[in-house]
């Protein structure tokens, strides 16, 4: 039987550290997450099981330090040429175990990328926030609070709307930003995050990128209120809720970069988010393969092992083939990100990168959903049984298709890029 590591990926893209880190993370997850993940759904509110698992992963293994420079006790990953690919590896392994945990970890990095990755580096803010993550002996989370009650897609649709629908406002008063607004759904909200990255506007209704601001807000700042977590179809390890900002005051230098550059730094989060979404999906698909292998070897149809029945073999062969193709595509998406500084690459905030990466994520999420649905039907009366893990992944990954502006925005961005559409 093949091993999951044999699913294709362009080997020349892979970091020399990949094998070592992958082994480390995989064995950690196999020991401390995979044996308990079936109980995560019931733990969605309390996180009694999930929180200690995060502590071991984020603080124990030190993953929450990964992006920060070595001088602060970090691993310096944000400065690496491999930041996308190493992120992919980490998120793929996490996705194999539990995509809810994967997103909670990845989103902790997400807002910080706006100040850590060249060419958008803010040393003063790094020095300010690094200790929060690097010196902690328990898991510390950040959140990227984009979505608002009237809609998340429009805020991410920066290319067309330029931030004009954002209702969360930032007003400069002396040396403080005063923030007011209501966000909902961010990963690691619901009382989890210690730090928020908040996209907001300095001039409501404006689509001028100079009026877009990305401001960091520590969760314990007066005026910040968080609601409890929502109950969802899956992704129990990720808490999502409401956040209200009422006259929240933070130092003026908590703004990531300033007029114009904030919008660019924020826009580059889109490819990061989409590439890591691909990694969650291919990770989950690799686990799907592992579980499916077991089922088709131990169950029969017409008196033969399922895998030896020609018609069933065609179905499961397609599933494994799709996983193989998606993995290649996911790594290509990561590589598009890591080419950002190369003469032959494109900046992350460019339409080319956003359009192509959104397109790949759209393709992989559709394919993943199809594979999981088919696999559940291969298992028949066992398909809906949590003991086989496939149904849990299916519930979890559905949101990967829906988040970050939804499927339709992916299609529109792809059309914009490939056809030069001007009005979509």
């Amino acid at each position: 039987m093949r091993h999951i590591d044999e699913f294709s990926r362009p080997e020349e893209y892979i970091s020399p550290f990949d094998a070592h880190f992958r082994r480390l993370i995989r064995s950690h997850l196999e020991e401390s997450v995979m044996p308990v993940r079936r109980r995560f759904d019931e733990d969605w509110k309390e996180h009694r099981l999930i929180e200690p698992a995060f502590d071991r992963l984020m603080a124990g293994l030190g993953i929450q330090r990964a992006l920060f420079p070595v001088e602060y006790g970090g691993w310096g990953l944000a400065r690496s040429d491999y930041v996308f690919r190493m992120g992919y590896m980490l998120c793929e392994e996490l996705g194999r175990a539990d995509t809810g945990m994967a997103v909670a970890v990845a989103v902790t990095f997400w807002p910080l990328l706006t100040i850590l990755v060249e060419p958008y580096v803010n040393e003063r803010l790094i020095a300010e926030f690094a200790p929060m993550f690097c010196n902690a002996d328990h898991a510390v989370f950040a959140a990227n609070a984009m979505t608002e009650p009237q809609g998340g897609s429009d805020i991410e649709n920066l290319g067309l709307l330029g931030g004009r629908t954002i209702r969360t406002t930032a007003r400069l008063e002396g040396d403080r930003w005063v923030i007011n607004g209501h966000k909902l759904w961010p990963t690691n909200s619901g009382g989890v995050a210690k730090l928020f990255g908040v996209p907001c506007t300095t001039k409501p209704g404006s689509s001028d990128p100079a009026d877009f601001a990305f401001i960091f807000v520590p969760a314990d700042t007066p005026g910040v209120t968080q609601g409890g977590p929502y109950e969802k179809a899956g992704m129990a390890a990720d808490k999502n809720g409401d956040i209200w900002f009422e006259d929240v005051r933070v130092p003026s230098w908590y703004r990531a970069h300033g007029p114009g550059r904030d919008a660019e730094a924020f826009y580059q989060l889109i490819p990061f988010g989409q590439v890591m979404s691909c990694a969650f999906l291919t990770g989950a698909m690799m686990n799907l393969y592992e579980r499916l292998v077991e089922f088709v070897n131990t169950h029969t149809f017409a008196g033969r092992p399922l895998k030896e029945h020609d018609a069933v073999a065609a179905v499961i062969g397609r599933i494994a083939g799709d996983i193989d193709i998606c993995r290649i595509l996911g790594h290509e998406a990561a590589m598009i990100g890591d080419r950002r500084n190369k003469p032959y690459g494109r900046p992350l905030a460019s339409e080319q990168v956003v359009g192509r990466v959104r397109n790949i994520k759209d393709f992989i999420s559709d394919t993943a959903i199809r594979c999981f649905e088919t696999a559940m039907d291969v298992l028949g009366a066992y398909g809906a049984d949590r003991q086989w893990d496939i149904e849990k992944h299916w519930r979890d990954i559905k949101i990967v298709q829906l988040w970050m502006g939804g499927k339709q925005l992916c299609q529109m961005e792809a059309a914009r890029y490939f056809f030069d559409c001007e009005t979509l």
Partner: protein
Amino acid sequence: MARDLDRLFMVARSQTGQVGAEVTDLLRQWVNREVVSVRMEYRKEYGKLFEQRWRSLATDLSIARLTMSESRGGFGWNKAGDAAGLARAAWEIGRADVSLGLLAAGTWIVHLLGGDTPCLEASPVSGGAEGAPKASFVLPGPGMSGESDPLFSGRAVRARAVRTKTGYELSGRLLRPLWAGAVADVHVIVCALDDEPCIAFVRAGAEGLARGPALSTTGLNACTNADLTLERVPVGSGDILVGADKVRMLFSWIHLLASGVCAGAAADFFDLLADWADSRTIKGGVPLKDNPLCASVLAESAQEIALARILVHDLADVVASAGAPEEGSAERAFVYACTIGRRILAGLIHALNRGMELMGSAGYAKEWYVEKHWRDIKNVQSSLSGVGAGVPEAMDAARFFYGSSPR
């Protein structure tokens, strides 16, 4: 907005009778009052309210009476020809909750197939005219490596019956019902008697019957499932229906009524999606339903649900035709039922997937109820897939249409 779902998702007039309409109206009012208009409360207090609603269906509406014979005080919808009326009723209850619909359908099927079996007569839950036993169904499905089971069209029959002086004894290990194994009053189990397929009706408290721990499943959370192990469970001679055609009819009824229930749930999903589409704006103020791309996705979702309803009633005609004395009618109904049932469920899952795409995170939140329909319908689809994602049904169709003998 109050939508006339019957006008939107039409059924040919020829397929609905006057009696059916009265029952449907009654059920519709009950569903709207007891579940649809209080969805939030129903969801929050699900464990408690589900049982209340089930009791109300069973006793206030005497749901089981529909398929009981008139001589036993029922409505007498106990013939294949009553399939269309039952499909409509399933659709209505499905709008409320797939689990409620499946339990109602299960009761009907038990009475349709086993109406005169002593097991049901003696059962306290079905003793009175109101008796609505919760039923679970163990159908032939995947076999286990290392075991050699008799086959029913390639599917393994993992329970065996042997004759005794007074009747039969039934044995089988870790049998997986479609749903409701942990909560059923009656287990309807396809078993093999000298390699001949048959259906056994086993009461939940029967000696030698053990239920495994409750399973956590994708959906159908009120129809908690559990594996069944039977060690020489005594079954009366009247509690076994012998013959492949009986099993084929069991498959046919399950496909018809489960897809009817799921189509009803999808119609409720439509209602929720339409509410969302009425109020949501994108692109800084364009109503979502007026955006051409979103409109096309909304359309696709509604088209699938509309088609599903039409197919449910076509399938009812097929099941009705199985009552004909003509040889092979049960086999034909079985092939068509599996084919159409699969097509309906695939279409519904597609409809829900597409609709959920437009609801962003709201569709994923339990608060909106759409994700429940999505999980429930997927659960039904996988359970009815038997094994191999439709391969057994494809083999049946190849046999039926081409005379193939796939091995």
